[in-house]
């Protein structure tokens, strides 16, 4: 990735791209978590309890990824 520290404008544009990339990642995570929640509800209504902890684990992993993406926004 090319990163040239010249004008403030170019740096600002780079930051916007970074935040938009973070947004895209977290939106993807949230959509996946929503899907996991619907699968968990389906399992509850079907009376199956065996596989639900996998769904919880993946949803928790998704939240951790969202947290990491959020934490990565700070400039070095």
């Amino acid at each position, binding site marked *: 990735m090319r990163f040239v520290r010249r004008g403030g404008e170019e740096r600002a544009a780079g930051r916007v791209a970074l935040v938009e990339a*973070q947004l895209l990642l977290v939106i993807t995570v949230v959509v996946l978590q929503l899907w996991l929640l619907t699968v*968990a509800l389906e399992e509850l209504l079907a009376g199956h309890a065996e596989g639900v902890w996998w769904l919880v684990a993946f949803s928790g992993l998704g939240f951790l990824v969202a947290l990491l993406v959020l934490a990565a926004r700070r400039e070095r």
Partner: protein
Amino acid sequence: MAEAPLGEMPYHEQDFPYQRTLDKLVTRREYLHLLTLTSLGLFLGTVGVALEALRGRRRDFPAQPVASVGEVAEGTALNFNYPTADDPAILVHLPGGRFVAYGQRCTHLACAVFWEPRARVLACPCHEGFFDVQTGLVIAGPPPRPLPRIELRREGDMLFAVGVQG
């Protein structure tokens, strides 16, 4: 930025004036925070659903006499109501001597299931749903979940319904 006077506004904006200067802009970073909170909410929601699924859905009701053992011949069924008079249920005397009982409402659209002795299944005539008579699990058709199982207790010659599972 100042808003245009009312007279200079387009006709549709006069009917529904929208004060843009009062609008609170949400930045991308604020939206990122909001989405992360949403992610936490979805995770906690999944945990709640999982706990509910693991807790089981056993409900105790007062014991109610259903029938005497000799009243239901082996391989036949008897309809009764449990846990209330508005809840149809079915008791099946399985070949081999074991008794099982289930709520009679199909979990698809609440048609009454019946005992099909030749195929040894509980069948729903409305949309051809079939349930395993041993477990109440769905074998075929559109029902989304098993039949609620009624727990039975045998005291001497009498069978009592004592609870509902599922």
